[in-house]
């Protein structure tokens, strides 16, 4: 039972170790998907938006973590 719990915990931490990064990424994908489905956004523009958004999330969450640790 302990091992099953640890496996589930490991699986969860694989994708949601940083809640801020995970939520922002899921929100970005949902937003881009919504723009494509509802507003018929050009798919290539959607791809560009997804890429730029992911890079911004990466830089933002890394910087936020660094700032948090610097202030501790």
């Amino acid at each position, binding site marked *: 039972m302990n091992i099953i719990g640890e496996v589930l915990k490991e699986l969860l931490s694989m*994708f949601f170790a940083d809640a801020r990064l995970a939520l922002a990424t899921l929100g970005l994908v949902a937003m881009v998907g919504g723009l494509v489905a509802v507003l018929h956004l050009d798919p290539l523009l959607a791809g560009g938006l997804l890429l730029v958004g992911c890079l911004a999330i*990466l830089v933002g969450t*890394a910087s936020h973590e660094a700032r948090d640790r610097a202030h501790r």
Partner: protein
Amino acid sequence: MDLSAWSVAAPAVGSAFLASLVEVVEAFTIVLAVGTLRGWRPAGFGAGAALAILGGLIALFGPLLGHVPLHLLQLVVGVLLLLFGMGWLRKAILRAAGVIPLHDEDAIYATQATQLTGTTRGPRRSLDWIAGLTAFKAVLLEGLEVVFIVIAVGAGRNLLWSASFGALAACAVILVIGFAVRRPLAKVPENALKFGVGTMLSAFGVFWTGEGLGVAWPGQDLALAVLVALFLTIGLATASALRRPATEVFP
């Protein structure tokens, strides 16, 4: 195989190989501690049982993915790869910048050895069981990430066997080196490997997610190389910026 096919196969096999190197080094450290302190029999049984379960997971879920509609598969796998890959890359950036400490295999070995030598009470069979379970857990938990990467990078383009080959090659390399030196492989540039793997998985994540949303990437599969270059450049630039004194980066 043409250039376009190679542009997907090479990152898939490379990601599986490099990610497996990182994870196998981590699992090997603990199996080595178990084997050295409690004997190779429980270490081998524990590691073998975990490998059998991991192999079963690939055999079970690999073919099942073939029944999922391609766009849905690309979208789900793409989002999971984004979460996983960007998580690795973010952590590698923070480690490269010195914000969080590097992984220390020697320290992990010492901690594991202390725990195992501290468990001296009880009959021999019970101690072997604890040692075997320790090796089992280490291989299973580290291996889960390898299984995910193999399935994720292999599923979208029918590269499951190629990705599996990459992972097995990494296991073979670490086992040969590990058993030759018989000590924790502390000199493996783990963070550089994680940086590389995080970059490739993030690029795969954007690529698959985009395809799942109907994006036709310019240059098709060759666009992956551009995505990898962008993530690598931005990742290195971020690590470099965060390495400066905090007052300069965050006025």
